[in-house]
């Protein structure tokens, strides 16, 4: 049984389009995250939600909007995609806020053409 799952695994789209990535965790964790990993493998946090409440919002363009319908789900919607948005996006969860024991999903590789 997959602990943290993301869909889709791959996403190829044109500049200017809007796309969404979905994430679900079945670990019963309270906190979920979105991380962005660039081509140099650098992992940078974007957002964090604790029990549906936004608690970390890094300096991310307004085109990125997370949504957490319940504590097991955290989706990421991206408007007006740009070339620089190409990266691998990871969803992760942890038992509580700022808990360093993160469980990562398999990642979504986004390619913007």
């Amino acid at each position, binding site marked *: 049984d997959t602990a*943290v799952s993301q869909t889709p695994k791959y996403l190829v789209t044109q500049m200017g389009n809007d796309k969404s990535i979905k994430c679900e965790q079945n670990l019963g964790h309270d906190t979920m995250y979105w991380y962005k990993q660039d081509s*140099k*493998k650098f*992992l*940078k946090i974007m957002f964090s939600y604790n029990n549906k409440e936004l608690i970390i919002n890094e300096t991310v363009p307004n085109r990125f909007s997370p949504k957490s319908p319940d504590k097991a789900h955290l989706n990421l919607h991206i408007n007006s995609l740009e070339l620089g948005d190409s990266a691998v996006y990871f969803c*992760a969860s942890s038992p509580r806020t*700022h808990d*360093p*024991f993160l469980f990562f999903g*398999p990642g979504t590789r986004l390619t913007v053409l």
Partner: protein
Amino acid sequence: EDQVTQSPEALRLQEGESSSLNCSYTVSGLRGLFWYRQDPGKGPEFLFTLYSAGEEKEKERLKATLTKKESFLHITAPKPEDSATYLCAVQASGSRLTFGEGTQLTVNP
């Protein structure tokens, strides 16, 4: 601002050739240092936590150590299945993790 620097960026070893990966950090009030392993096409997986200078943790062929300025991940007699990217992260008190850029390890048979 917390900073984590990993070296080397990439490391190629022959099977059985032991070596070490380095993670240097600058953080105000270290709460913990964490090593993760990332296989191609997958998310990082947690390996070790180190909390104080002098602490050591071991798992199979891997041993992680911590000083006040850096951590080492020693790999003894590596096998091809140890090939992966190894990520180091630090956490200051009450804050989020800061990751390094990782070391991509390749172990040739």
